[in-house]
């Protein structure tokens, strides 16, 4: 059974259709790359996978449960299982970095204060953010905010992670760090969807890729398949040609 199964997903905003018919699956432990031009609706797809956005029609299954008609309350267990890494961090600016990271731990785990502290230190060290612990988000650079947001999403060790352009705007060193982190998560069996415009990263971490175009899936394939067929739609997209 696929961990994520999207069937005939359609969504429009103010009468303007963004998605007409999108279907794809993500298997357990797999990393799926979700590609497509800017504004094609990649973030909308990810948001819909945790119920932040409701589809107009179609179905979304998370581990076999159809979530598109779930209430906010029913979505809570889905959202603890599936983490969404916001494109811009979406940190709580009234809290310090420490408090931002403690938030999901206090809500969803029974860890005591010292365990929370340890977990946060561990996580901050992993992302090279030791010095940021007591700063407020507004004191951080955009790239740092992004990494804190990433840390906050995965700190409760979700089974599925949806990355929304986690490497955009990061320097090469941190881009590699994030790639390594995603690969480490994959080794632990985490399933993921990776939205990106950063092709080297996509080829490094993804098992399979899906290309969105005009509100539907235009091409799909494993990384090997893509490499074999240089004239395919995905390859042309990757090379920057008009699809």
């Amino acid at each position, binding site marked *: 059974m696929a961990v994520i199964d999207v069937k005939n997903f359609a969504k429009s905003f103010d009468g303007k259709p963004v998605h007409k018919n999108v279907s794809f699956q993500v298997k357990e432990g797999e990393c799926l790359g979700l590609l497509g031009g800017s504004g094609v609706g990649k973030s909308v797809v990810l948001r819909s996978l945790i119920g*932040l956005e409701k589809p107009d029609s179609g179905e979304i299954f998370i581990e076999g449960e159809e979530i598109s008609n779930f209430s906010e309350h029913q979505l*809570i267990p889905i*959202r603890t299982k599936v983490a969404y890494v916001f494109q811009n961090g*979406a*940190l*709580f600016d009234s809290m310090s970095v420490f408090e931002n990271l403690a938030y999901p731990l206090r*809500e969803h785990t029974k860890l005591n204060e010292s365990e929370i502290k340890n977990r946060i230190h561990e996580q901050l060290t992993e992302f090279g953010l030791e010095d940021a612990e007591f700063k407020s988000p507004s004191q951080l650079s955009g790239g740092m905010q992004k990494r804190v947001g990433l840390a906050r*999403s995965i700190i409760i060790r979700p089974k599925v992670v949806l990355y929304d352009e986690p490497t955009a705007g990061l320097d090469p060193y941190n881009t590699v760090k994030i790639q390594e982190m995603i690969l480490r998560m994959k080794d632990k069996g985490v399933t993921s969807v990776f939205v990106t415009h950063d092709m080297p990263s996509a080829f490094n971490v993804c098992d399979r890729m899906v290309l969105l175009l005009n509100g539907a899936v235009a091409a799909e394939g494993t990384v090997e398949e893509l490499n074999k067929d240089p004239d395919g739609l995905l390859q042309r997209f990757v090379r920057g040609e008009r699809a």
Partner: protein
Amino acid sequence: MNSYLSFLQVFGGASLLLYQSFHESFRRPLYFKLILEQIYMVGVKSLPLVLITALSTGMVMALQFGLGLEKFGGKLYVPKIVSLSIIREMGPVFTSLMLAARVGAGITSEIGSMMVTQQIDAIRALGTSPIKKIVIPRILACLIALPLLCAFANAIGVYGGMYVGYNDLGLDPQFYMQKVFQTITLADYMSGFGKTFFFALFIAVISCYFGLNIKGGTKGVGTATTKSVVTASIFILVGDYFLTKFFWIIEQWLS
């Protein structure tokens, strides 16, 4: 027609939000720390503004009535009239209007900014409820703080009247207070005080509603804040008429 529709929209949306908040307040966990924080923000921080408003209202009313009634030799009625209008109307309504401006604007712009920067989405994405984290603490804080602020305002307003009565009208403070206590009944007090619970709901729910339904980025935050204060004030002023009638019927019924 258009404004009629948008009124219905606000009314419906705010009622729904109130219903959801009520519904969710029975689900664990409730965040007491957030509620206390909001009581501090709403109550303690509004105290100076509310006290100044009440004091000057009481003083000005005593002065106006004192000067006006002096011609007819009615100066001795000042304690009665001033305290009655403060306790029944001016205290509760002015306190609520000040809070609608100060707290209502604050709530709408804060929640609105959180919407624009996706922090409300983050609350949801992290498996928590914005209603519980944001809306319920603000509603409860207003429900607790506004009546208390009104009680302070009533006392200070009456004191302001007494001070002017003594200073400018030559009324003995002891006489003044005696008259006040003779005049004001529990029914008078409660009919004013009781309104503040309704006004608190208007302010909190309307300002949260406008914050959560922001449209159009940062510019939308400004527009929504203005709308929120105007709407809450109108609800207070119009609601005041119906609540006065409502409490009047109850008074009749009880006596």
